[in-house]
């Protein structure tokens, strides 16, 4: 059993425990093979983490977007977008995180 964030969850994973909404409503039961609809419902109900049955392969084969982007590419794009954030303290955790998200978004938009 592995606990993963909702962002790492993918369709066809199997739930290791029941998932409840914030008001206690049962959204899906243990053993359910989740679909895209489940994921949408989980997000809508503010679920942040779910427990899934571990797959055989290491770390359930989860690959996040950031893994696919090289550190160099990220650094380069962050430098490009830096002027937009010039009025802000770039070392503030929120600003740093927003710059990273903005860069990732730009890279994935370019790739598509």
């Amino acid at each position: 059993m592995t606990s993963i964030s909702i962002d790492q969850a993918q369709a066809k994973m199997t739930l290791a425990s029941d998932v409840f909404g914030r008001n206690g409503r049962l959204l899906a039961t243990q053993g359910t093979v989740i679909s895209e609809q489940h994921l949408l419902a989980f997000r809508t109900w503010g679920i942040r983490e779910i427990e899934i049955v571990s797959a055989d392969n290491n770390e359930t084969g989860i690959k996040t977007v950031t893994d696919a982007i090289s550190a160099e590419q990220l650094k380069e794009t962050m430098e490009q977008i830096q002027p937009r954030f010039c009025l802000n303290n770039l070392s503030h955790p929120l600003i740093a995180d927003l710059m990273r998200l903005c860069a990732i978004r730009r890279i994935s938009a370019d790739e598509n």
Partner: protein
Amino acid sequence: MKTDLIPSLDRVVSATRSICSPPLIYNRLNETINHPRASIQDIARIISEDQGLTARLLRMANSPLYGFTRIDSISRAVTLIGTREIRDLVLALTITKSFQKIPENLLKLEEHWQHSVACAIISKNIAFYLREPNVERFFVAGILHDIGRLALCLVHPEAVRSIHERALHANQSLYVLEQKSLKFDHAKLGGALLKAWNIPDNISQPVAFHHQPSLSRSYKRDATIIHAADLICHSLAYGTNPRIPISRLDEKAWSELEFPLSGLETVVKQSDLQLEEILVAIRGDL
């Protein structure tokens, strides 16, 4: 700009009110809600007279933003969402119509609308993440947060144009330049306009302080949520001009919000998923 040419906040508010007013339906809903013997059916009947609005409200109530399933009538939507919340939602969905006369080259309503809806969704999701009660108000305040900018474009297009030009070169955010040349900014103006329209303080105050939430006395937390959502929208370029620098984060107010950064990506992803759907659901004749 010469001092005698600077319009005062009150003047701009009254000039805006003489050109546009909240839609009639908002006032009718308000009267009905405040009437001691009015029922939910009375409220639903008023909304149902406008077919376009009815369809948009129903689509919205059935969207993932609310998480209800199969709401097939306005009276059911009113029951589940709440009478005041529906009234404010009606205002947010219909108000842009009053600003159609703004010249396209000054402000693109479509982009403004996209930014407003994105800010509304992100505000609501941040509030939801923080377990705030009654999160609907964040959606409405988010949609209305830049209404002062619309009012300024309508009443003083020339002032807006010159401030825009300067923002592109001065490396300053729009609201700071507005404060410098007008002595007030679009946030203050928006708050004052909503107040003049008798919109409740829990919406008008966060709008008024969305650039400087620390200055808000009674609605600091709400204002900070709108402030952060606005900043996120600008950073991720939802319907905004990418050439104008992003406004400064009010770091003090943000730290008081105690929003865990681990939640940022979740909020952004959740909002991304909802944005497209909500934009389609509430698309009307702007």
